[in-house]
């Protein structure tokens, strides 16, 4: 194992761990289901993907790397679908998203048009 490969591997592993930790903090700290889903989605795709790429550098050109690639493809395919299904099921069962005006922000901290409650004529959320 060359030094360059080792350094690259650990860079990927550490950045992947950062994503996983950030996602974990997000799941605890975010205010409602949809923002929590966003945090856990980052963990599933970004964090797990980077960790797997780091492990591929550890494995070198071998059968292990091929198996890791298959896991990566399956993960990047299945976890966004599950996040989508969960969010859609929550919307369909009437879970109201958390809008920016629910926060007690000073007017200077508001971004115009960001997370704004939709006007009553297009009620029903994104479809």
């Amino acid at each position, binding site marked *: 194992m060359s030094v360059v490969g080792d350094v690259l591997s650990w860079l990927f592993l550490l950045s992947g761990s950062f994503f996983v930790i950030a996602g974990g903090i997000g799941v605890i700290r975010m205010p409602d289901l949809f923002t929590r889903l966003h945090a856990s989605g980052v963990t599933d795709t970004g964090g797990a993907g980077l960790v797997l790429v780091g492990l591929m550098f550890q494995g070198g050109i071998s059968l292990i790397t091929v198996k890791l690639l298959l896991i990566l493809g*399956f993960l990047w*395919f*299945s976890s966004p*679908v599950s996040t*989508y*299904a969960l969010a*859609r099921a929550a919307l369909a069962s009437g879970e109201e998203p958390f809008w920016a005006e629910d926060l007690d922000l000073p007017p200077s901290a508001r971004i115009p048009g960001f997370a704004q409650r939709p006007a009553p004529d297009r009620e029903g959320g994104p479809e």
Partner: protein
Amino acid sequence: MSDQIILRVATKIIVPTILLFALYVQFHGDFGPGGGFQAGVIAAAAFVLYALVFGLRRTHRVLPTWVVRTCASAGVLLYGGVGLATMIGGAEFLNYNVLAHDPEHGQHYGILLVELGVMITVFGVMVTIFYFFAARGREDL
């Protein structure tokens, strides 16, 4: 739920992959982690996913109840049949050594057949349990 195009397409891609992985776990079981029980559960999970997305009625058309029940008993029959075959061969129940001319090959065939029986039974029982729970309170199924 059948109007959800993303879930439908994803399920159509994932279900064959899960079944293939179940076979991998089954036949790689004597070299790595895995074996009959795990493979049966994974194969049953593929059909549970199919039923969640496409509905119980279509799943019954793919995998009728009589097939599942036949699986549940055929696996036990295979398991016991291997045991009886070894007894006919002149050894103890499930002593695989007599299944081939070479005892080592006999062990190999024996464990493969017995694990196949376990997989078929576990698959059948798991899907049967799911069918019973999913059809509870529904007279149309």
